[in-house]
């Protein structure tokens, strides 16, 4: 994907969260957004995912600008997948029904075809044994992996992952990160917001450091992590990369 975000401004209740943020990437498969909490990473991701519309500025992927009206944005959201930090799943539905819901009600598959579609991915990620459990009966890691799978089985053009491991124990973080790594290997495009610096460095094609509502540094992962000129970014990395 070629991402081009220009002069994005977003305000909530008078607070400026994105302050003229611009970011242009090369043709990357995995873009990772890092930076301090409250810096604007999640706000940026929500705009990229078509969940929010910026107050000013615009975004395009591969030269196609994101629409601004809700109906067109809904079509856009149907073509991508988004996973939040937590509470992605619908608690009244089993894991399987969570996977089937968008396939059947949004993408028009018959229930039988939808079941066929999810069978192999459930096996591949060792989740088949848990398919009939409600979210309350799943571990945090299983919940997140089902959520990623739900975003994946609709065959999206790309995924948006907003701190998918932040609410998890270390052990469960490992299983979710392993899944994301496997997605990378199978060619899935994604934008990931994370505080897992070691993981970000390994998986990212490009990294953007978002702070104070702007992109303070951006480029290939190695460049940002090893040779960044910005004192602000180096300070942040020295405190988070142990």
């Amino acid at each position: 994907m070629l991402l081009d975000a220009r002069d994005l401004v977003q305000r909530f209740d008078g607070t400026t969260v994105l302050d003229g943020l611009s970011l242009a990437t090369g043709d990357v498969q995995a873009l990772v957004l890092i930076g301090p909490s409250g810096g604007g990473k999640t706000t940026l991701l929500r705009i990229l995912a078509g969940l929010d519309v910026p107050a000013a500025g615009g975004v395009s992927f591969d030269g196609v600008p994101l629409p601004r009206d809700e109906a067109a944005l809904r079509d856009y959201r149907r073509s991508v997948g988004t996973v939040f930090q937590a509470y992605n799943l619908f608690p009244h539905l089993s894991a399987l029904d969570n996977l089937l819901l968008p396939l059947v009600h949004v993408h028009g598959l018959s229930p039988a075809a939808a079941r066929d579609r999810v069978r192999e991915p459930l096996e591949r990620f060792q989740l088949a044994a848990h398919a009939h459990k409600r979210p309350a009966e799943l571990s945090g890691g299983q919940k997140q992996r089902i959520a990623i799978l739900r975003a994946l089985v609709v065959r999206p053009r790309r995924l948006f992952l907003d701190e998918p491991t932040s609410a998890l124990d270390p052990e469960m973080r490992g299983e979710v990160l392993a899944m994301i790594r496997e997605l990378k290997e199978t060619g899935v495009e994604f934008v990931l917001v994370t505080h897992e610096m070691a993981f970000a460095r390994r998986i990212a094609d490009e990294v953007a450091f978002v702070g104070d509502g702007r992109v303070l540094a951006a480029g290939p992962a190695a460049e940002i992590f090893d040779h960044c000129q910005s004192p602000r970014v180096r300070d942040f990395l020295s405190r988070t990369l142990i």
Partner: protein
Amino acid sequence: MPRWIAHLVVVAVFAGLIAVAFARVNYAWNWAGVWEYRQKFVQAWLTTVAISLAALVVSTLIGSLAALCLASRRPLVEAIGRVYVELIRGTPLLVQLLLGFYVVASAVGLENRYVVGVLVLSLFSGAYMAEIFRGGLAAIPRTQRDSARAIGLTPWQTLRLVILPQALRLVLPPVAGQLVSLIKDSSLLSVIAISEFTLNAQEVNAFTYSTLESYLPLAAGYLVLTLPLSALARWLESRVRFEA
């Protein structure tokens, strides 16, 4: 101890206490006088059942509509819902019935007192239902709407597939309680001369001077309606239960 035995024991102890109380006041029973009016009781009880059923359906509709008003982001729509709920909940049903029948219904030429009775009762109960439904909708976390939007559901699909199934579980117990109240509140329809269960008990009492013999069957007649309703609600609740 199984739950049903526990229930039986509690009921038996309670009945025993009541029996002792009656024995101490030496109440002179006269069931024969009241027994002659049994047909009247049955007729009136059926009227109460019919009125309650009708009001149950209509008040659920009104309550749903008003809850949508309360949740609306348009100030005028929200205000309509809020004023309705507060006016109805803040005033006695008795006054609403008298105003509704003698003023509003007369003014618009609506003469069937049974229709007026069901409408006023439904408006009354609907105000409580509206708050229950609104609370149920508000209790569903924002993250659920976000997730629904992220997978591309329309607002209507979000309501139908995500919000309502979860809200239903939350509102069932209070709705059942409200419906029990509704059945008992229908007794007030006697003030606009609707020949329902309570009015008939009052009449039988006037004919026979046997107060308790007239009113005890009244209590039993309401319990026959409200107890199964509570049981049904508990059963439904167990069927839609899941952990959040």
